[in-house]
Every structure is written in C-alpha cells, then in structure tokens.
C-alpha cells in the first residue's frame, strides 16, 4: 500500500518571541491508502493543528508534508488549492453543508469547483448518495434532513470524485450512538475502497473504529496503539460470577 499522507518532523508554532506557542512538535505521521488512523488527545493537544496541516490549509513551521505524492511545502498556493480540491475531503462535527444547496448539489460542488461540468458532476453525486443510502434524499435541502443524514451527505461530499485523503474532525460529535456508528461504518467503508482516513477526536469509542490510534499530548505524538489483533483473541475463558 502507498502512503497517501506522509508527515515528517512537522512542527507548527504561532506568534513569536516570548509569546510563541508551539502547537505541534516534531510530529511524524504516515497514513497508507486503505488505512484509518485516529488521532486522540485532549483539547489543546494539537490535533486540530495536525489535521489542518495534513489538509494543506496551514503551512508547517518546519518539517515536510507529502499528500498523494506531492510535497506540499514546495507548491504554489494555487497548486495547493487544486490538490486540496482533487485529493482531500473534509468532514466536520457540524456538517458544514451549504444550506441553499440540495444534498446532491452539496456533494457535486467540489467537482464543479474543479471544472467538472454540471451534468457529470450531478451523476457522480447521485451515485455517491446512492451508495450512502441517500438516493431518495438527493433533492432535499440540509434543513429537511436529520443530523445523521446530513453527516452522510458530508461524507459523500468528502469522498466524491477520486479523493485520496479523508480528514474528519469529531465527525460523530453531534450524533446519537446509532447514527454515530453508521457514520463510522461509512468512513471505514470508504477506507476499505482505498481512501486514507484520519479522524481527530477525544472520544475513545470513535477512535476505536481506526486501524491505529495515535495519542497526542502537548503537541507531541507520545504513543500509538498497535494494530488491532483479530477479535478471536477476545473469546477466552468462562465467566465464574
């Protein structure tokens, strides 16, 4: 499997002099195609900074970031935004759908921004919505959809086209447990089709959907879980209560 995201020695500081805040310190993170990685840490641990840098929305102070084979630091702002439109999809806690556009128009938008004509963009959007079980909701507006449906539309928008990297910030935070679980099943399904996924969260249940959990403290990666062993190792012993 190839690395879709490769961050090496990435640091990010804000401000200067005595007021400098080091948000991220010497972080290394590689995410392969087909892999889902969770970044887990408390508020202020640097996980959102890591996600915005991975998504090329912010530049590093030092270190290199390679997204889908492109070294982000040597790219012009225009090339970076093209890479972002074509290769990177985002899912946020509060969905961030455009309220004046239907579900299908929201999903088609990144394709149209990238120059795809309206008709093929709509065809692609409808296909994605169908795969997410939202075929009959395509022409509804966000405020006509439930929270779980809105987040599924947001996932559709994040994976439509040939997007390689799916970045999610607390994607189940606003949902109940049943909808949260179905959202994570869809994220896993996208990864199984070859997308590289990164979710940042403080929630261990959400993180437990990942193949690997990376723990962040004070802007440093301090630890990571070993890849999950097969569930058969849980089937041990009898209860003696």
């Amino acid at each position, binding site marked *: 499997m190839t690395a879709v995201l490769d961050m090496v020695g990435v640091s990010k500081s804000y401000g200067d002099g005595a007021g400098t805040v080091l948000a991220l310190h010497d972080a290394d993170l590689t995410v392969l195609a087909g892999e889902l990685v969770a970044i*887990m840490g408390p508020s202020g641990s640097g996980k959102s900074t890591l996600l915005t840098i991975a998504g090329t929305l912010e530049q590093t102070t030092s270190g290199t970031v390679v997204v889908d084979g492109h070294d982000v630091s040597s790219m012009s702002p225009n090339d970076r935004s093209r890479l972002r439109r074509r290769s990177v999809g985002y899912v946020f806690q509060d969905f961030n759908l455009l309220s004046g556009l239907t579900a299908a128009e929201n999903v088609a938008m990144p394709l149209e921004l990238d120059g795809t004509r309206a008709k093929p963009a709509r065809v692609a959007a409808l296909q994605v919505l169908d795969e997410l079980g939202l075929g009959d909701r395509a022409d509804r507006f966000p405020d006509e959809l439930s929270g779980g449906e809105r987040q599924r539309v947001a996932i559709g928008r994040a994976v439509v086209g040939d997007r390689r990297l799916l970045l999610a910030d607390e994607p189940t935070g606003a949902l109940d447990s049943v909808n949260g679980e179905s959202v994570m099943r869809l994220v896993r399904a996208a990864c199984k089709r070859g997308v590289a996924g990164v979710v940042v969260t*403080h929630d*261990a249940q959400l993180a437990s959907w990942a193949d690997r959990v990376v723990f962040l403290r004070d802007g440093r990666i301090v630890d990571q879980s070993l890849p999950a062993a097969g*569930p058969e190792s*849980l*089937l041990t012993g009898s*209860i003696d209560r």
Partner: protein
Amino acid sequence: MVIRHALLALLSEGPKHGFQLAQEFAAGTGEMWPLNTGQVYTTLQRLDRDGLVDTDGAESGTQTTYVITDEGRSELETWLRRPPDTTHPPRDELVIKVLVALRLPGVDASELTQVYRRHVVEAMQQYTRLKEDAPEDDIGLLLVADAEIYRLDAIVRWLDAAEARIRRLPPNDWRPATPIRQPRRARVGSIR
C-alpha cells in the same frame, strides 16, 4: 448469580438438559461468554435443591431434563425487575495503581495513565472490529460487544480526568509528556 438466572430464563422457554443449556447460553451472548458444562450442572443442582427447577423424570438418552417450577418463574421475574447493584463498587485495581503511582518517587503517574489508556483503547478496537464484522441480526453479540465498549470507554474517561487532575498538581510533581517506549504487546482484555 448471573448464571443461575440465565439458566432459569432458558428453562422458562421449555424443558432442557444441561448440555443444551450451556450451548444456548453461549449462543445467546454471541459466543462471548462460554460456560463450561460443569458450571451448568453444579448450578442446576443448586436450583433443584432450592425448588426453582425440577427434573421431569423423562430421560433423553442419558441426560437429565430440567423444567422450571412456579417458584422458579417467580424468582426469575423478581430478579429481572430488580436493578443491578451499583452501590458497592469493588476496590478498583486501576484506581489503586494510579494512587500508588502518585506516592512512589520516580514514577510518572501521568505517563502511566497513557500506558493504561493505550491498553484499554486496543481492547476497544478489538470489540469494535467484532461489532463491525457481526451479522446485523446477532443481537446477543452486538449487545455484549456494546456493553464491553461502554465499560472500557468509562475507564478511558476516568483516565483522562485523572491525568488532567495530576497535571494540575504543582510543577515539581509532574513532568511534561514524553514519548512512551512500547513494551511488548500486553494481553488485551485483562483490565478488569
């Protein structure tokens, strides 16, 4: 106690013999809680002694068949309606370990919380994988996996809260986060 009432519940569906009860108990929990046949027979003997089950005299092969009595049905109903006891938690090994760590010189209690957190999260990953792969209609397995995930999640939340408290202690008492050397793989599922 749980096995006792689980067997009464299975017998409330009709007469059954011990081996069958052991198999149905395991199947009903998605094979997560296997019971050995010895435990089943010991429990059945006690239920018989207490008048909650009866042997119906009919032998199926060499196996004794058990039936639930009226007293057994009434005991099952009383047990089911009584909320589980949550008022007297046992002394928690995890809490004691963190308390001990705070007193021992040279031990970074904050770092220790991360060692425990990783171990618990790895167990959660396994239960989540189990849930992901489970057939949608295997309600026993899904409920047992959910129960374990929520139980483990509560441990992670406590660890997060504990670490936040420890880090608010005066500066002499804690050091900033440092990378943790991974020990060899610990056995998952043993934190109780």
